[in-house]
């Protein structure tokens, strides 16, 4: 449900949570990202940082420079200025990321979990079954058939939390319980409504369906693309997965290692929420690729 007006909740002495609603409607994320952009443009004294998510935005502030009440007033003003969700236009780039679906490395990670923690079969088969798809090959076709919207970059450095923009490619699946203790670096995971890419080899709960050889951040800033930005993607960017085979995976991996890999990302475009919603309304949402 969308909240009218948005709710403002305190998180201690220097955080405020702005909730646009309590479900996972993508409109609520568009509002959160619209407010993020408006806050950046407004450059309000005392606003330190923003942390957007599915239906909410955490705002960090310095109470010596702006009071809780004044911050809420300013946020209400900025939200009012956004207008309806259909009127929103967000700066967005499209990144093409190579991915080997059904790869041997994430399969090994799942097998290790199955052996040491809880028995389970192959993740791609499981996700395909959960979504009524024929098999893992169709899963790869469906998953690579859409642009994925970056809801937030969060949790660990550079990690994009994404959801399918084309409803014909939307997937849902339950997450691991208990979670994995380690995850293949670059693994593509799906869980809940989201797709993610693991940027650290740490724990995780998403089902693993493929792997990208392309790094999404680099603390050492070695590759030229990371000289001026530490992480590859921002919230409101889009990702298109390009299926590759094992040989091409090795080729790209080597080019990433020697710094000659050419990242494929478009310039900023304006993403019109109104135009997007019109397109979605024209689709047969039950269709599958």
């Amino acid at each position, binding site marked *: 449900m969308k909240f009218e007006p948005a709710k403002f909740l305190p998180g*201690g002495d*220097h955080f405020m949570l702005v909730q646009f609603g309590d479900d996972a409607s993508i409109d609520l994320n568009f509002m959160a990202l619209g407010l993020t952009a408006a806050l950046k443009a407004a450059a309000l004294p005392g606003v330190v940082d923003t942390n957007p998510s599915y239906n909410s935005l*955490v705002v960090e502030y310095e109470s010596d420079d702006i009071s809780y009440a004044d911050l809420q007033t300013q946020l209400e003003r900025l939200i009012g200025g956004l207008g309806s969700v259909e009127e929103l236009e967000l700066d967005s780039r499209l990144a093409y990321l190579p991915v080997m679906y059904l790869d041997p490395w994430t399969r090994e990670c799942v097998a290790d979990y199955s052996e040491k923690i809880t028995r389970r079969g192959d993740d791609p088969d499981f996700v395909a079954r959960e979504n009524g798809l024929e098999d893992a090959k169709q899963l790869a076709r469906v998953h690579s058939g859409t642009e994925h919207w970056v809801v937030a970059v*969060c949790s660990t*450095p550079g990690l994009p939390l994404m959801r399918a923009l084309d409803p014909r490619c939307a997937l849902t699946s339950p997450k691991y319980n208990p979670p994995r203790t380690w995850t293949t670096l670059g693994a593509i995971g799906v869980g809940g409504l989201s797709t993610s890419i693991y940027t650290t080899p740490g724990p995780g709960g998403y089902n693993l369906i493929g792997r990208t050889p392309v790094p999404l951040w680099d603390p050492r800033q070695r590759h030229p693309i990371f000289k001026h930005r530490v992480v590859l993607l921002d919230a409101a960017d889009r990702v298109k997965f390009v299926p590759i085979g094992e040989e091409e995976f090795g080729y790209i991996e080597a080019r990433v290692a020697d710094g000659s890999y050419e990242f494929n990302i478009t310039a900023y475009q304006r993403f019109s929420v109104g135009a997007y919603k019109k397109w979605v309304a024209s689709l047969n949402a039950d269709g599958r690729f």
Partner: protein
Amino acid sequence: MTGSVEVLKPGLETCVQDYPGRKGAFGMGFPPSGPLDAWSFRLANILVGNAAGAAALECQFIGPALKFTASAVVSVCGGDMAAKLDGAPVALWQSIAVNAGQALELGSALTGARTYLAIAGVDTPPFLGSRSTFVLGECGGLDGAALKVGGEIPVGVGNGAPGRKVIEKCRPAISQNHRWQIEVCAGPNDDWIDAAGQKRFLESEWKLSPKSNRVGFRLEGPEWTFTDKATNKAPENGSDPSNTIDHGYPIGAINLCGQTPIILLHDTLTLGGFINPFTVPSCAFWKLGQSRPGDIYDFELVSVAEAQARKRAINALCGEDSIEAA
């Protein structure tokens, strides 16, 4: 002059931190890092003539042994790790001169848990505007990690003077009886916990679990009970009462994972799918930083305005007015 400090013994995850840490990077997936007890940290810096937020060392539970290749002014503040300079005891809360070739050694924490070692002019390279170490992110500090044997901490020009000390009443009073009264503010998700559950949280003793680090402090205590909001919700929230649609986490949030509350600290994941019924405000963080597994927390509910006032009172003590001649 410029020189370096050689690491003879690293201690237990001793890290370069600065204050307030890596701010403005939530949108890239980075928590702020920075010292847990920023009160002791800032006093340590002020003693040696650094800016209050300059890079210094956070020693955790067991301190390091360091050899100075050039003369320096240093201070040791916070928990008592029985610091010794070439074997002679070093007073806490004072600036002291170290000569080239001398070794400063810290032991295990006798009081508190974290000790701050300020050296005039620590000069590791900043990352995203901060020198704070984020171990999980392998960035900041010295090569993105805790100190290692043989490591060299670059030290630039300092302008500190020895013989200064922190006035006793301006220091944080580190608990001697392993009990701490910790401020909490209600929210953001307090309405997911029923009245009995909120009362139980505020009136019970909570024990700090050994499964705690700078990412989060796990607490052991009674059960949580929930309102209808937690138990009767849309399926995309997840199946457990403590699950919600992924949202950003405030630093200090008491993050409820099933029945286990975890206080999210400076190296936390920045977002996730569990509720945060209460949040520990920044004025209580020095107490978190100085507590150790097994210590008992009693939570004190304060308003946001009161938490902000208490933070200002601590900030006011982190300045030159708190210093006197030794």
